[in-house]
Each structure stands twice: as structure tokens, then as C-alpha cells.
């Protein structure tokens, strides 16, 4: 197991590369999900404001 982690003495470089890969993929996975929450919340807010407006000034 420690042989595997050592990667023939190149462990630092190999594992750092794999870390970069997975960290960036994780960001790529999470970022659009956070944005979706924001986009939908914004749209819900806009719909609520529109509804209030039509209630205050009902069209004749």
C-alpha cells in the first residue's frame, strides 16, 4: 500500500495531478447547482412581486 502511494518516488506529482483533476471536476459539478438555486429563487421572487402588483392594481 505505501509502495502504491509512493509511486516510485513520484507520489507528490502523481497525486497532486489527480487532486487537481478531481477538485476542478467537483467545482464543475457544484457550481451550476448553486446557480440553479439562485436562478429559481430570483424567478420566484419576480413572480411574487408581479402577483402583488396585480392584486394592488387590479386591471379594470
Amino acid at each position: 500500500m505505501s509502495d502504491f502511494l509512493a509511486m516510485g518516488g513520484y507520489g507528490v506529482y502523481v497525486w497532486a495531478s489527480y487532486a487537481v483533476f478531481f477538485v476542478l471536476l467537483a467545482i464543475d459539478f457544484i457550481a451550476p447547482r448553486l446557480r440553479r438555486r439562485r436562478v429559481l429563487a430570483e424567478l420566484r421572487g419576480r413572480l411574487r412581486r408581479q402577483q402583488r402588483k396585480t392584486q394592488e392594481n387590479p386591471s379594470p
Partner: protein
Amino acid sequence: MNKLTLWFHKFGSPPVFHRIGGLLAPWLFAAALVLMAVGLYGGLVLAPADYQQSDAYRIIFIHVPCAWMSLFIYFFMAANAFIALVWRIKISEILAMTSAPIGAAFTAITLATGALWGKPMWGTWWTWDARLTAELVLLFLYLGVIGLYHAIEDRRQAARAAGFLALVGVVNVPIVHFSVKWWNTLHQGSTVRLLGPSAIDSSMLWPLLVMALATKLWFFASLFVRARNDLVELEAGKDWARKVALGEGDGA
């Protein structure tokens, strides 16, 4: 209309794309993760050490698939930008703009892992050689497209301006690809060839190809998730988008 155009128009309609993308994305992500697990097991455990580079060569299993993706995504982005500029198809606009951040991520991984590979093998993190410089220019092109898209207020005008930049920058794609042939560089030539035998043993080749497929599936999964957000934002005034926001069904 024939069947294909009909299908294209249907899939290109925002609510249908939103629904189908939402159905496909989780499966694409799952398939990508399974393939990554298989590919990395093959690359890190099953494949033998290289006779020259010992275990350091194992960086290839992420460096090369990500480099392939950096070019593939640029080509995909430019093709969609072209369709968007000529035929004004909304979906193509969105696909072009959403592929830019994913492409930038893969390009950044390529450059970072390249530096981490270069240090032990070449003795330097970075050198201004043709392949490395062209790949860095590719990253700047991606960042330029993203920046231009966000600098203009009107979404559709922004997509057209950034799409034009993406289209002009496509000239860099063959430069990256052929740089190892056209110039004397520190970077090695292609080991995997579509035509003719590859200069790599099959025990190392199959994990590489599995990882290439995995990154491709990951790209499309991420593309769908991101495109869905942009569709809801762009079509916020439409009935289907309201239903999505209020959680009444998935829109179509």
C-alpha cells in the same frame, strides 16, 4: 418537414431540452464516474510502470484525456457559435456559451498536470515551447469568451459577440494539435493515433481510452445541467419556466 428536422425542432425547443437534459444528466454523470473508477483502476493499479518514467507516467491518464477534451470542447463551442450566428438558434447559443467554462476547466487541468509532469521529467514546471504556449493561448481564448459573454448586459447580444470571438479563435485548435510536428518542442509527439499503430502498450492504452470516454460523458452531463439554468433564465417570462420555478412539473 421530414422526421429529422422535426426531431431537431422538438429537441431544440427550450422546455423539451430542459426536460430531456434533466433526465439525461444524472445518468451521464453516473456513467462518467463508473468509467473513471474503471479507468483509474486500470491506469493506477493494473498497468505496469514505464521503463523510462517509472510511475510518473501515470499522470498521462488524466493529462491526455483532459487535453483532448480542451480541443474537443473548443471545437464543439465554435461549431455551436457558428450555428448560432448563422441560423440564430437559441439552443446553439446557449450550448456554445455553457461549454466555455467546462472547456476552461479541462484546459486548466491540462496545464496544471502538464506542469506537475514536466517538473520531474523535464526538470521545469514551464517552458515557452510551441505546444505549451498554444495550450495557454487556448485557456485565454476560453477566458476571453467567458469574459465577453458576461461583459454585455443583453444575453443574446452577448452570446453573439462571444460566439464571434470563439469562431475566430478556432484557428488555434490545429495549432495546438500540430504544434509538436511543426516545431521542435520539448513536448513529445502523439502516442495515440487514429490511423496506424499507437506507440503505447495496450495495457496502458485501454485505461487511457476509458478515461477519454469518461471525460466526454462528464462534459455532456455538465453541459446539460448548465444549459438548463441558462434556459430558465433566458425564458423567465415563459409559462414553462414559471412552472419550473414554482416546482409544478419539469416544464414540458
